[in-house]
């Protein structure tokens, strides 16, 4: 198969590089081959069966897909809701994270306090604080509407109104983007100080420095954040489960919830696998779009 090497030195270098590649990626490769590959292939196979909880099932071809696109109205609903969530949450989270990280990278007093403050929501994100949020959003007695009522505004029924509930879920999710902020901050701090110094000599103001130095040099980080946030946002599950259980009227019912309900509550493992792989396909598609546009807006040093 391999073409006879014309430049022997070149190929040995290549060989050595390939060997290095496998040596350093070995931990992940081993983990992938031993622990991840088989479950993935198995779930791929399950997609074409009507496997139930007891492990009994037969090959049904594309029936699961047919059912999803014809009879299962919730399938489409769940995906549309998820897309709605992704399109609301991802841009807001990227912009917000960049903005906050930018402010944090300035030489402000009490920097440690602010950093900790912005990261606290991420640390506290768990069952306990989600329960607290349920109350914060409560329509009659919740804190948000109480504060609004002090200034004479009647707040919405945050979790009970089908037009507002998803926005409430997005707000709760935006509250926990401490992780994105940290990564953004690391990205901004990786920009060599000398760039700013030379810009200052050239007389560029801080706004111009932001747009001509920080933003472009931060694009690899933004790119990273964009991809992982899209991937994670598509699998949103815990917040709607705990706050609304997908309601009211399925307005917060997400794809991951549909997968979960089918697999663990209705015992339809085959259908749940189909659901997982269709989520995979959509996420992959969006990621490919992002990756293919990246060469137009992501700048690396080399």
């Amino acid at each position, binding site marked *: 198969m391999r073409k006879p090497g014309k430049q022997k030195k070149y190929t040995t270098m290549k060989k050595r590089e*390939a060997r290095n590649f496998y040596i*350093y*990626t070995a931990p992940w490769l081993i983990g992938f081959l031993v*622990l991840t590959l088989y479950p993935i292939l198995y779930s791929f196979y399950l997609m074409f069966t009507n496997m139930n909880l007891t492990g009994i099932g037969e090959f049904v071809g594309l029936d699961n897909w047919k059912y999803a696109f014809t009879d299962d109205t919730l399938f489409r609903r769940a995906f549309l809701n998820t897309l709605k969530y992704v399109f609301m949450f991802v841009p807001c989270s990227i912009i917000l994270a960049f903005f906050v990280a930018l402010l944090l990278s300035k030489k402000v007093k009490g920097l440690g306090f602010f950093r*900790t403050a912005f990261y*606290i929501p991420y640390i506290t994100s768990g069952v306990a604080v989600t329960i607290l949020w349920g109350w914060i959003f409560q329509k009659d007695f919740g804190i948000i509407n109480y504060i609004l009522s002090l200034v004479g505004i009647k707040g919405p029924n945050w979790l009970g109104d089908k037009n507002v509930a998803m926005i409430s879920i997005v707000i709760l999710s935006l509250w926990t983007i401490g992780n994105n902020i940290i990564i953004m901050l690391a990205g901004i*701090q*990786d920009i060599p100080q000398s760039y700013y110094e030379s810009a200052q000599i050239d007389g560029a103001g801080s706004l111009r420095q932001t747009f001509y130095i920080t933003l472009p040099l931060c694009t690899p980080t933004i790119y990273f954040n964009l991809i992982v946030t899209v991937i994670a946002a598509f699998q949103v599950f815990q917040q709607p489960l705990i706050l609304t259980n997908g309601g009211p009227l399925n307005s917060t019912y997400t794809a991951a919830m549909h997968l979960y309900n089918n697999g663990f509550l209705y015992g339809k493992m085959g259908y749940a696998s189909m659901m*997982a792989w269709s989520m995979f396909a959509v996420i992959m598609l969006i*990621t490919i779009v992002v990756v293919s546009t990246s060469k137009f807006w992501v700048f690396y040093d080399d």
Partner: protein
Amino acid sequence: MRTRSQKKTKQMARILTYFVLVIAAVICLFPFIWMVSTSFKPMSDIYSMPPTLIPKNGTIENFVEGWKGANFQLYFKNTAVITFLATVGTVLSSSVVAYGFARFQSRLSKILFMVLLGTMMLPTQVTLIPQYLLYYKLGMVDTIWPLIIPSWLGGGAFNIFLFIQFFRTLPKELDEAAKIDGANSLQVFTRILLPAVKPVMLAVLVMALVFNWNDFFNPLIYLNSNDKFTIAIGLQFFKGSQGNVQVGQMMSMALISLLPVLVIFATCQKYFIQGIKMSGLKG
């Protein structure tokens, strides 16, 4: 004149920065503060109307009862062991693997990178059962190994990807220069690249720490014995099957459980600042 107006705008910008930061900090801290306040309230005051920030009948009963409610002392120990082992593993293995992806190529490296990304995109619930079976066959169900091994084997695609992204921003000339000086590939990694991405290492460390400390799903699935449970599972013991919640006790235990992480973060964030200085030298 010009310098004066410049100074003025600079001052305005400063005030604006603080204003925005303070508002944002209040929003971020509010539920946390409310959590603190709730953990000191008796049940009858927790949902009082109108809401009160300072508990009227302050009590520490929630802490006493909550601590007794489940075996939290043991849960703390268990969680600390798992978190320590998993966090160390994540930082070490994800940086090594990322170095391989970012600096070396083979015929499969592009495909493998896509596979790496792909593993993030398939919802974990669907591979749960076959994976569980695998660990069972390895004799690892009801041990902490299923919670730690993945950390030592790459530590998750997210962290690897994060390191790759930062290694790529470093010019390759750095490696070349070191190689000319006689460094091998491992030395390039440990002496040149790792020191240059210290802020990222800290970020990964903190994120892995928080993730493992709060992880509920994996311990729930893989641990069976009550004396091996973790804090995240313990907190669920305040939420009954019929919808009743011991809110005060839950908040007090959640508060205690996040203190160690908070302390570690507050200490670590100082080194983020040091990160800036090092980057400055590097350029």
